[in-house]
């Protein structure tokens, strides 16, 4: 059996090396596309925040009039250049709004994770706390996210007032109070979903391992912390990536409580230029870029933490 295990090991190693050549091209292309996409976005943020170091704030790096000139002169493919001109004209404003989408997603998923881990653990291992966890999770998963945001924003006006009263909110780099309320809403909601993914992962760790941890003298909490969770979180990566990708797109619901994120920005511009379809397609391209990045990033994380026998992030 030892030989057999060693044999498969060598096989898979040489197999992955052979594939590496092929994958290298694809991986390189992905990295290049990612670098271009995010390089452009970061340059735009830098430009607009600093009041325009490269070009005036919210103006394209390449003037759209350049494409318009071509579009007018070329008969057949002129339409494509017209579309490019449109994209270059409005993308800067959308990228500016994309900042809030990224902030909403990253902060909410991270804070939600901090809540989700104890929530999941207490659902599996707790007694009274298990019921509290179940109640919380079912309440948050069983009601619409938009309704939750409305309750926080319109139902608790003191919450909005509190954030507005904090120094610096809505000025400079700090976003307005509605963003804080949205982060709370997304965090509480995402924690419930993340907890369920993590609970499933906890339950897939063989229970004998916790018994073994206890038999060595570790407490229950230590056993969960050092034996169960390191494995469960690896198992949870694929499901958790799902939640991350959802949250990127669900952050658009913040538009309904006045947060000027990507979706709302696209809608605002469209209501003045009446090109709704084009604006939403442009916004969709940006969402897609973020989602693909998130997926690739989590696959990378899964590969980095993979352990023989426990394949986080693989098989997706």
């Amino acid at each position, binding site marked *: *059996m030892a030989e057999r*295990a060693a044999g498969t090991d060598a096989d898979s190693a040489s197999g992955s090396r052979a594939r590496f050549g092929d994958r290298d091209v694809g991986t390189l292309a992905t990295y290049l596309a990612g670098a271009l996409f995010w390089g452009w976005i970061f340059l735009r943020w830098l430009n607009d925040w600093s009041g325009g170091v490269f070009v005036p704030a919210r103006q394209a790096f390449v003037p759209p009039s350049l494409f318009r000139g071509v579009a007018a002169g070329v008969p057949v493919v002129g339409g494509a250049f017209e579309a490019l001109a449109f994209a270059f004209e409005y993308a800067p404003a959308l990228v500016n709004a994309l900042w809030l989408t990224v902030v909403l997603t990253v902060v909410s998923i991270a804070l939600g994770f901090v809540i989700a881990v104890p929530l999941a653990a207490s659902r599996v291992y707790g007694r009274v706390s298990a019921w509290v966890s179940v109640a919380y999770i079912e309440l948050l998963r069983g009601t619409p996210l938009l309704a939750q945001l409305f309750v926080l924003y319109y139902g608790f006006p003191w919450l909005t007032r509190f954030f507005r009263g904090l120094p610096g909110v809505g000025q400079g780099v700090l976003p307005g109070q509605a963003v804080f309320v949205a982060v709370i809403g997304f965090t509480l909601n995402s924690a419930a979903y993340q907890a369920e993914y993590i609970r499933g992962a906890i339950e897939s760790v*063989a229970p004998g391992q916790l018994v073994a941890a206890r*038999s060595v*003298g570790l407490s229950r909490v230590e056993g969960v912390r050092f034996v169960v969770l390191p494995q469960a979180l690896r198992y949870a990566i694929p499901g958790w990536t799902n939640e991350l990708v959802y949250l990127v797109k669900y952050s658009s619901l913040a538009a309904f409580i006045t947060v000027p994120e990507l979706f709302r920005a696209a809608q605002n511009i469209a209501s003045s230029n009446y090109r709704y379809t084009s604006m939403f397609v442009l916004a969709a391209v940006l969402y897609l870029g973020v989602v693909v990045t998130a997926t690739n990033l989590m696959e990378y994380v899964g590969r980095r933490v993979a*352990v*023989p026998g426990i394949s986080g992030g693989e098989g997706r």
Partner: protein
Amino acid sequence: MSSESPSDPPLLRVEDLYKRYGDEEVLNGVSFDMDAQDVQVLVGPSGSGKSTLLRCVNRLTEFEGGRIALDGTPTDEMDENDLRRQVGMVFQDFNLFAHLTAKRNVMLGLRRVRGHSKEEAEARALEELEQVGLGDQADSYPAELSGGQQQRVGIARALAMDPKLMLFDEPTSALDPELIGEVLGVMRDLADQGMTMLCVTHEMGFARQVATDIMFLEGGHLVEHGPPEQLFENPRHERTAQFLDRLTSLHGGDHG
């Protein structure tokens, strides 16, 4: 109690142990003593309470009646984590921590329970793995090891805590026949070095050669308890004879 036993108390004293799951009585007044360096083998039909008895000793399972004392101290007066540090346990399904290498499996308890530094723990872990013949597999993950190797890591993990007593819960039952010998060999070495061991096993070759005593448990009662020669040659109960005969024909092979 000191008036009854002027000498040292037994390493392990199990007194009138009762345990039930719901309506089912699993242990019905089991009593026995173990001295240091004893190797006691516990046999009995499945469901006779052997595993439950082991788990009562390190309090992985609580019991309804009776007393268990380790080195004269009642276990219910001890901190349960401290008790378990002093009583090593080896499982049928190995139960290695799947995300940790062999070395780190052994190191976890050393670091978190015994408070060793990383360097101390690592040195000790390598020593224990060497002892079970796996010094060269220290950086392998459980999934990369054979069943016999995994079980030996499990033994090293328990030994690293410097236990006074080792509990073996059918350590070879999940192994392919050709891998049983390497695990029994390690257990034999341990016995030779004077480790006190309480083993649930069907390996009659091991029981005959290594055990100081064999206990036959059936229906939650300790039917018979004595040295291997007595139980194999002159059992007092017909049931003991029948059971040992059948076990010997099934598991009498001399693996180690």
